[in-house]
Structures are given as C-alpha cells and as structure tokens.
C-alpha cells in the first residue's frame, strides 16, 4: 500500500507506474520492463496487458452496460483478451463472484448503486488476470463496513488470479491488510520502491 497525505504525489506516482507520466530522473519498472525505454505505444500496451486500474470514483462509462464496462480493457489488450477466451462468460462469473446479481449484466452503469458500481470497477480491473492492480483510493468514499467488504472481495479475487494489488490511500488503518506499506514521505532519492 502507498500511504501519503493529500498532495504528496501519490496519484502522480501511480500515473508513472501506469506509464502515462514519464519520470524525469530514475526509472520505473513494471513487470520487469523499464518504462522509460519503451515507446508511448509500448507503454500503453503494457498498461493494457499488465495493469488493471480502479479509480477513486470507480469511473465507469455511464452509457455502457455492466458487460461493456467489464470487457472494456480487452479492447486494447489482445493477449489479455486471448487469455480470457469467452469474455462474456468470464465477465459474468467475475461479477457473480463479486456479489453482483446475475440480471445486472445488461443494466447501464449509471443505473447501478454505488456498491454495484464498485464491484463492476473491480471486475473490470481483474478481467484477463493482469499482473498488477492499481487502485487509487478506492475506499475513500466508503464507510468502514463497506471498506472491509470491498477489500476482502478485492483480495480474494486477486489471490485467485495471482495478481498484485497496489493501493493508494491516506488511511493508515488499512495498512494492516497489505504485505507492504510504503509512505510517500519515506521515499528518498536513493530509495528503490518495488511493488
């Protein structure tokens, strides 16, 4: 988990890890690849193939169905798509495992409750078993009970898929649930931060 106060650069660091912001000094390695040595297109492809992203506000496409949203990353990641095989079936299973009712697959994202949107966002990040899930303060808008449930579901699915989870938060209490906690203020020029 990446801990830090607001404005400490957590989101910028996530963008660097995802390859949408390039570091001016040093290097960022994701899945064994130095991002600074990749072209913009290669970084986009790496992000599509290896990283699942969960935003703070879940950020689903409101006009798309649940199925559209869950399958969205596969449009940009051919290998991930081929790993999935029958996308619809896998998406449906993921949603069911995350506790979404079966009839919700063709509902518009804008019509879902916040809790349902949260689960769809997790399913979208998990589909195609990316090697890393990057979650930017996904629990900040949730009460304690919902936070616990959300993290439990995320960890369960990540364990099944053998996916690492890098979560950004400013809530120190959540640190107990992660293998490693890195504080933004502890990162110095000499540190090598490995996720």
């Amino acid at each position, binding site marked *: 988990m990446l801990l830090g106060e607001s404005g400490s650069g957590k989101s910028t660091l996530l963008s660097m890890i995802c390859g*949408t912001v390039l570091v001016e000094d040093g290097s960022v390695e994701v899945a064994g690849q130095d991002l600074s040595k990749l072209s913009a297109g290669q970084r986009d492809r790496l992000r*599509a193939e290896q990283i699942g992203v969960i935003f703070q506000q879940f950020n689903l496409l409101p006009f798309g169905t649940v199925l559209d949203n869950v399958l969205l990353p596969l449009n940009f990641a051919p290998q991930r798509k081929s790993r999935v095989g029958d996308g619809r079936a896998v998406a449906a299973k993921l949603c069911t495992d995350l506790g979404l009712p079966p009839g919700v697959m063709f509902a518009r994202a804008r019509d879902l409750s916040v809790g349902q949107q949260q689960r769809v966002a997790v399913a979208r990040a998990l589909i195609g078993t990316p090697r890393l899930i990057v979650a930017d303060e996904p629990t900040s808008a949730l009460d304690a009970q919902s936070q616990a449930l959300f993290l439990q579901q995320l960890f369960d699915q990540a364990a099944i898929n053998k996916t690492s989870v890098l979560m950004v938060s400013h809530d120190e209490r959540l640190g107990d649930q992660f293998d490693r906690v890195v504080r933004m203020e502890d990162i110095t020029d000499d540190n090598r931060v490995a996720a």
Partner: protein
Amino acid sequence: MIFRLAIASLFARAITVGMTILAIALSVALFLGVEKVRTGAKDSFADTISGTDIIVGARSGSVQLLLYSVFRIGNATNNITWESYQDITERPEVEWIVPISLGDSHRQFRVMGTSVEFFQHYKYRQGRALELADGIIMSDLFDAVIGADVATTLGYSTGDPIIVAHGLASFTEHEDQPFRISGVLEKTGTPVDRTVIVSMEAIEAIHVDWKSGAKIPGQTTPVDQIRQMELTPKALTAALIGVENPLRTFALQRAINEYSQEPLLAILPGVALQELWGIVGIAETALLAVSTMVVVTALIGLMATIFSSLNERRREMAIFRAMGARPATILGLLVLESILIALMGAALGMVLLYVTLVIAQPMVDQAYGLWLPIDAPSWREVRVGLAVVAASAIVSLIPALRAYRMSLEDGMTVRT
C-alpha cells in the same frame, strides 16, 4: 465493441447530437433539393421540345423566341405574315411545319392557335407524342383541346363551353364566339399542360369584329356568318419546323435568317436552350454556393458540438486511457463519432428530401409547371452524402486533435 460504445455515447448525448444530426440533415436536404430543382428545371426545359429542328419567329433574340414559342414565357415583339409562312412552307428542306398563334388567354392559361399537325409533330421527352386522355382533337371551328392542368385546375371536361379572353391580361372576352372542349390531353409535364389549343382559323374567327387590338364598336358578326367566311390567318406568332434532311438544317436556318421580304429569325432549339443555360448559369452557381455554405455551416456546428463536449468527456477519455487506449484511439473515436453523426444526418437528409418531394411534387407542378421526378437516389446524390461524411471527418480532426493533446496531458487523471 468500441463502435457500439461510440453509438451508446452518442445516445447518451441524444439532444445535442440529435440537433446536430437535424442541422446536417436539413443542409443535405437543402443542397440536394436545390440540385433536384436545378436538374429538374433543366430536364423539364430540355424535355419540352423534341424532334423540332427549327423554330421561326419575328426577328428578336433567340432565347426570347424560344421562351415565348415553346415555354409561353413572355411575348413576341412582332408577328410573321402568312405570306412569309407560305414561302417557308414551300421550301424543299421543310418536311413539316406547324404554325403557332399566341396572344389570347382563358383565365390564367394561354390560348394557342395551331393546325391539327401540331398533335402529330409536337414531341416532348425524347420523342413522346401528345395523347388524348378524353375526346378528340379539333373537328369544328370552335373546338378547343385543353391541357391536363387546365382541365384539373378549372374542373373542365369534354363538352364544356369556354370563352376566350382577348390578350393576356384583358377583361374583354370573345363572348360571342364560345368554344366547346373537344378533348383533354394527357399530362405531359410541359407548357402544353397549361395551354388551350384551338385552330388557326378559330383565332381568326374570334377576331373578325376586332381591328388593331380593339373591338369595333357595335359590330357583332353572327357565328353562322363567320363560319362561311374566308378565315385564312393573316399572321402568326411562330412556326415549328421539321427538316427533310438534318444536314440541310443550317442551310434552311440561313435562308430564313436572310429572308428579304420580312425580318425573320430561325433558331435551333438546342442551341437556344444552351444560350439560356448560359444566362441562368450565374444564378445557378449562386444558388449552389448558398446551399454549399449551408452544408459548411452545419459541419461547423458539428465541430462546435464536439468541441463543447470535450471538457465534459474528459472523464470518459481518462477511463479509456487507463484501460490502455492510445491517444490516437481517442482521436479515432471522436472522428468515428463525427462520421456516424454525418452518416445519420446525410441519411435523414435524403429521407427528408424524398418526403418533401412526394408532398411538394404536385404543388410545384401545379404552381410552376416544373415536374420534379422522384427517382431512386442518383450516384451524384450518394456522392454528395459521402462528401458530407468525408468533410465531417476532416472538420472533426480539429477537436479530435485537441482531445488527443488533452488525453496526453491528462493521462489517466480524471479531470471534470
């Protein structure tokens, strides 16, 4: 799936997108409508006369002669004497000749004096002959054959009496010599539809009591007496000529133009028509330019719509970027949306055009005598639609490139 999402995104902005589609549809309908009217008018004019090699009238302008003799637009400055007409008739190049006498009217319709040969030799729309819908051609001195529009507008049918008015805008009628409708012509889409046709002798007969354009006071010759009179016309307005050998057309034209007894003008209908297109060409171009500007305005509206949606769609772009979409994909999506909007606009424009044509066709025909054919969309119309779609893709590149830069700057950071 991206294509389906693009459509879903458009539906999510249904009102804005709908208005843009409507603007494009109206501009496409207007552009194609102007084209339809333009080509319809050209075809209608070109189809009005067929198989006539030369038109002869008093010396004036060739376009003027064509307009008044064939299209019943405007008036002759002078007449041709019957003697000159006889001289032309006797020339060896002439296979057939039909006299035309214009000047009188019935309600808003022109009355044309001619011979029965007119029905045999007048051809329209690539050689189609006049056909009677009802009755017969003139067999009596006071018989009249009316065009389809005359019958429809005035509710006339065979056997009805009609009274011809003197001149074109006169309140004086030839009420002492009423005509009887002997036949009604089939619709032709030419000025014949709006013409009352009588014999040359009948024109002479109704002017027995007239001199120098005015009725002789107190003189009313009984019809029975008129029937006994020598009614050979003294003058005519114009004559339609078919030549024996097409190679001799120019020789006959030159001979008539150099006719020494009277200043005459012989024109070739096709050449005069080309001259007419040359005159109206500037107006045509202006009309086309205005309708093109309307299409351009609609496309600028499309560009403005995409521009104004960029800020509210930053979240959407950030989601796509986070999922691995390249900035070029974002650019492509916006261009694809524009193409879809333009396609729907162009298709709706076509539908609007044809619905308007179906509704307006009889009214335009009735009001202006302009027959607008309702055919399947031509290759030219399809090309116009495709050009609008291509132009929309080009104009959308401007906001799309802005979105491209925004997606590079924002990355997966959601800015709203």
